[in-house]
């Protein structure tokens, strides 16, 4: 750089008016760290509701106060009914959902891996997937009896189809070069499936699990509304038919907590199994 250049630069930098900061345009579009806001919104809403009920703005007939729903819940605990209802529901949910997911992953792998299975099964799966399984509930009652069979079957079918679709989609998306790599090192078919395809499809399978779990909870309640003595669905149905809205709300709150717990568990499984994604 020549002397005159330097002089010029010094000149311009001595002129403060011509200096401006580059405008910042990179803000926004980023998840922040506002963790406490969620519970806060929740608490504020409940408080407003409680205050509204107590002051008479919200008629007790329309919507009971949260404290009343809490009271109904407390009674449930005291009489020991809570565990009967919750236990019956959890048992159906766990059996139906885990069977549905296991079968779904197996069939999804078959569809994803074997062209023949894909040709044969995929149209069937696609045709049956969109049917709301609730519509089939009466049929399941005839087939599997009014007892546990029909309820578990409903949940099983409801979680089976989304799992199949998530799994074969996941298998399709496994990086083909990894499969090629496995073949080029002479790995056996089963080794490739177990060590390359299944872990590669795991993110998709787990997000399928999320979807199928929420479907399973919906179906659980629906199934328990037909001929069940115990279960959250039965409790909610009974409360509804007696217009015991406080109990109804208590049941709904249990369902919400159940859903939260399930999604938390799946989140933990995701963090454990997908740690490699960082």
């Amino acid at each position, binding site marked *: 750089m020549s002397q005159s250049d330097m002089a010029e630069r010094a000149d311009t930098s001595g002129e403060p008016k011509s200096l401006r900061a580059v405008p910042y345009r990179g803000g926004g579009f980023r998840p922040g760290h506002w963790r406490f806001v969620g519970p806060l919104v929740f608490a504020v809403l409940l408080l407003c509701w409680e205050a509204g009920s107590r002051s008479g703005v919200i008629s007790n007939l329309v919507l009971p106060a949260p404290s009343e729903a809490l009271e109904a819940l407390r009674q449930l605990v005291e009489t020991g009914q809570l565990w009967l209802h919750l236990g019956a529901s959890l048992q159906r949910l766990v059996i139906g959902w885990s069977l549905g997911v296991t079968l779904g992953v197996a069939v999804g792998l078959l569809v994803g891996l074997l062209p023949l299975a894909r040709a044969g099964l995929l149209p069937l799966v696609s045709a049956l997937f969109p049917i709301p399984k609730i519509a089939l509930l009466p049929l399941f009652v005839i087939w599997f009896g009014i007892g546990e069979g029909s309820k578990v079957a409903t949940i099983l079918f409801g979680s089976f189809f989304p799992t199949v679709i998530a799994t074969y989609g996941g298998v399709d998306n496994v990086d083909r*070069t*990894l499969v*090629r*790599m*496995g*073949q*080029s*090192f*002479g*790995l*056996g078919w089963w*080794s490739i499936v177990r*060590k*390359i395809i299944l*872990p590669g499809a*795991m993110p998709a399978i787990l997000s399928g699990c999320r979807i199928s779990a929420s479907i399973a909870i919906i179906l659980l309640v629906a199934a328990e509304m037909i001929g069940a003595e115990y279960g959250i669905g039965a409790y909610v149905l009974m409360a509804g038919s007696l217009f015991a809205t406080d109990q109804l709300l208590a049941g709904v709150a249990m369902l919400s907590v159940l859903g939260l717990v399930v999604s938390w568990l799946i989140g933990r499984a995701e963090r454990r199994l997908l740690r*490699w*994604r*960082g």
Partner: protein
Amino acid sequence: MDLLLRGISHRYGGTEVMRDINLEIRRGEIVCIIGPSGCGKSTLLRFIGGLERPDAGEVLLSGPEPEGSLNPLTYVFQDFALLPWRTVAGNISLVLEDHGLGRQRIAAIIDDVLARTGLSEFREALPRQLSGGMRQRVAIARALAVRPAVMLMDEPLSALDSQTRELLMDDLVSLWQRERFTACYVTHNLAEAVRLGHRVVVLSRRPGQIRTVVDIDMDLAERGPGHPELEAIQSQLWTLLRDEARAADREITDVAE
């Protein structure tokens, strides 16, 4: 063990991608294959490794497999092809697990190849924690673990920046000095070809045919960047390739993957 390619021709759908390739890859030599983009280098390598079958011609092995080789024809991929959910050691273990070696034997092999490639301290690292150069070193370590007779390398350094590429080329040279491995090395980088190749095979544009084979009779250790003789060979290769590359560049590809 030597490799012999005889009369290999191939077409994908209506496009002829390769015509009558004849080539011999002898033990202990590195054969580099260069050619314009889309001339069928990767395809040829897939034929050699038995991942795909050519329409015509055959790939033959001659001589006994080297003793203790678990996978005589072993690939090193351009994009490393490491399992992201396995650690460095796990990725190497993957290719050993199917051979009934026993846990201790596998651990010993892993230790050995990691030491040979200078990766021992990265044993438990996940691929995403490593730089591109380190990942490719892991892939090379994995290839060495199965004691290959021939390494099939498809643009192994193309995904790396040029400094890392230099480093890895040095690594490959010193590795070859020690182990005298046999390799078929596909590249589009002429500098790599003249640094590593005992022979350089020049392919024409699609359909790929062998235009010339250039022998480079110089010890790998003597070669280095800026070596006048190598520069001369490199510019000779470029002259051969330039028109092909220009023509290939202007072609319209309409091949469905």
